[in-house]
């Protein structure tokens, strides 16, 4: 029998090394932008240099943080709703196949709605509070997760299903023991796509009308001819998205320990 090596955690330096190309490309982009803004003679009210954006971001950090909080709140609340709805509906569709034909066209249409048109309407109907933001975030994040879950259930190995039924397992048991765990990799793929839409969805909703939030902050900054502050807010929202994205990756590692264990098999080099 081949020797099986014990599971060793991947060293942190390896994870950091993976980030190096990304850091370099972003850095080069920033340098090019800085050079162009400095030497082309373009006005800072049209295109501010990154150094100026950074400087203004620091000066206005209280306002930025103050406005980021409601955006984060709307993002997380909307995402939680969307997650719950995606799970509930994916199960409904999995247990009652006809529901799929009934519901999917509706969901697909919901994905074709232009946010620019929908956001003001939702605000008009539900006011300037948290509710319309939650709804818009849910609207843009719900579908990728639903599709991922439904597809994931279907990816369950046929033999596992046959074996479980031969053991005497009912549908619910098969779902919990086999279909749900089989869907996990698909679910996380969907989650990663969704999470990148989530912050943008919240900002869109705020743009259409809000008392506070990154969206309304951007709108005001633009109206005051402060593209530096618009870009500072964009930086904050991008950072938010990156952090959320990183959290999903971390969550996946915690939820699927067998994935990395599988790469540790003797003779198999972990993918970098």
């Amino acid at each position, binding site marked *: 029998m081949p020797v099986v090596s014990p599971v060793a955690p991947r060293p942190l330096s390896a994870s950091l090394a993976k980030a190096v190309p990304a850091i370099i490309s972003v850095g080069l982009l920033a340098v090019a932008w800085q050079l162009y803004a400095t030497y082309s003679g373009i006005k800072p009210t049209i295109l501010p240099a990154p150094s100026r954006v950074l400087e203004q971001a620091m000066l206005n950090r209280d306002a930025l943080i103050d406005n980021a909080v409601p955006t984060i709140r709307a993002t997380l609340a909307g995402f939680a709703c969307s997650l719950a709805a995606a799970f509930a509906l994916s199960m409904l569709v999995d247990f009652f196949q006809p529901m799929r034909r009934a519901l999917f066209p509706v969901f697909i249409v919901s994905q074709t709605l232009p946010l620019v048109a929908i956001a003001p309407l939702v605000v008009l109907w539900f006011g300037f509070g948290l509710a319309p933001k939650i709804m818009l975030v849910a609207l843009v994040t719900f579908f990728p997760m639903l599709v991922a879950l439904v597809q994931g259930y279907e990816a369950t190995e046929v033999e596992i299903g046959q074996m479980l039924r031969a053991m005497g397992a009912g549908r619910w048991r098969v779902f919990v*023991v086999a279909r749900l765990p089989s869907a996990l990799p698909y679910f996380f793929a969907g989650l990663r796509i969704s999470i990148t839409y989530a912050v943008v969805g919240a900002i869109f909703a705020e743009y259409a009308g809000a008392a506070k939030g990154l969206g309304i902050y951007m709108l005001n900054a633009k109206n005051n001819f402060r593209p530096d502050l618009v870009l500072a807010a964009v930086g904050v929202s991008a950072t938010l998205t990156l952090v959320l994205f990183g959290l999903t990756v971390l969550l996946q590692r915690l939820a699927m320990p067998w994935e990395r264990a599988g790469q540790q*098999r003797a003779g198999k080099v972990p993918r970098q």
Partner: protein
Amino acid sequence: MRRLELRHVRKAFDGLDVLADISLSVGAGEFVSILGPSGAGKSTLFQLLTGAEHGEGEMFFDGAPLDDHGRHFAFMPQRDALMPWRRILDNTTLGLEVQGVKRKAARARVASLFAEFGLAGFERHFPAQLSGGMRQRAALLRTVVQERDMLLLDEPFGALDALTRAAMQRWLEQMWRHHRWTALLITHDVREAVFLSDRIYVLSARPARVVREIRVPLPRPRDPAGAAAQQAGALEAEILDILLNPQPFKGHDHD
């Protein structure tokens, strides 16, 4: 004593005849193989037995018609069907868990078998960390620990390399002598069928019928290099000849 008996079982999928006429029986404590070419319909037969599909003809267990309610079989599917997300220990207790056995009791029952199955020390590993042979033994452990009346093994060693397969066949023969399970094994490997079985049913290509029933009177423990090796070789040659030179079908000649 006959435990499993099939009479003129047939099965078609949307007009595709898969099983044309299968009659066979398995006695208590007997190891029987179904040998046939790939795509003949062997796995389909197990689907009928486990109730995943329904066909025509009669199926009896201990003289009573098979229905969905009686759970006589512990079934090992063609691929090992280990759940990648469960550790080996939790994979092997799966059948007991479904039966409603408490986790602690289930673990105690499988624990005593880990050494015998060559898996001691790998309880906490994930399936992806095991070699092919170990995975098959884990799948087999999961199957036998259910303590059903009969084992249904669908090409358990089909995916293994030749050396590992030979080692596994010897190991299984030894295990069987010890436990005397009533077992029905599907294989397309002539040597494996002769080495392991008391009797062999040879199937035709699809649509499958039983073309020959062959008794294997070789002494146990089976020894591929022993005195009976020549006899085994002759049997293998005979079976291979049946498989490679199919006779045109002239109506059934059994019963």
